[in-house]
């Protein structure tokens, strides 16, 4: 399955309004469990794990944050993507505000698959137009299209 197919209309947040990183992560996880209802019972656990993970070292860079954790007892990948128009201080190493967030929860095993997924999303996120196109998106489908169109060949 292409990595972009992990995302559905439920996993896209076009206009994140939160003004701190914990609220952003909570919003992303809410979208994630809407797309994958089997994770609803673990929603708070996932939010806390993402917060703890980011506290160890920000995944923010070049306007994009990719918060991610692995989850024991979970056998599939869950994702969400959100756009914050104004940009948020996500403690990125380059000091730049983060406008696009991609949250990922993955199974405890599948190390190789996870590395490939991270490589893919980092490649998409690195595209010079990714952040500006994402901020200009008028609807959810345009975000989903971006993930397909900007993927490396």
């Amino acid at each position, binding site marked *: 399955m292409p990595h972009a197919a992990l995302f559905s209309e439920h996993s896209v947040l076009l206009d994140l309004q939160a003004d701190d990183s914990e609220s952003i992560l909570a919003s992303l996880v809410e979208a994630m469990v809407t797309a994958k209802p089997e994770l609803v019972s673990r929603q708070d656990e996932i939010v806390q794990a993402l917060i703890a993970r980011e506290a160890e070292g920000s995944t923010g860079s070049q306007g994009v944050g990719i918060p991610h954790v692995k989850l024991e007892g979970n056998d599939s990948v869950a994702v969400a993507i959100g756009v914050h128009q104004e940009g948020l201080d996500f403690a990125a190493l380059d000091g730049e505000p983060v406008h696009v967030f991609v949250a990922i929860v*993955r199974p405890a095993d599948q190390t190789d698959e996870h590395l490939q997924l991270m490589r893919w999303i980092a490649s998409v996120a*690195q595209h010079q137009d990714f952040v500006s196109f994402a901020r200009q998106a008028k609807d959810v489908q345009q975000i989903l299209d971006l993930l397909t169109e900007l993927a490396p060949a």
Partner: protein
Amino acid sequence: MEDTVVGTAVVANPHGIHARPSHAIVSTACEYQARIELRCDGRVADARSILAVMTLGAGEGTSIEVAASGEDAVQAVEHLVRVLQAAEGDAGKEAQNRGESHA
């Protein structure tokens, strides 16, 4: 033209270079003035960009070349090779000690 200093590190972590080791690599690279690239399997990444480092997708056993140019290139390469090899093991150990879940 400035000379390029090159060193090699082999990824020891069974989880490969995921985000946390990438963070350690970028933090280290930012301590130096030298321009630093990481190279593996034909891919090249600016060591100051966490996204670029993650695009290497370097798994366990992958050999990574650290190439730096600039006045502190020697020190930068030595330090980064050490971080690439040491941070990997340390990261795994820390996670185990805390019993937390990490990607």
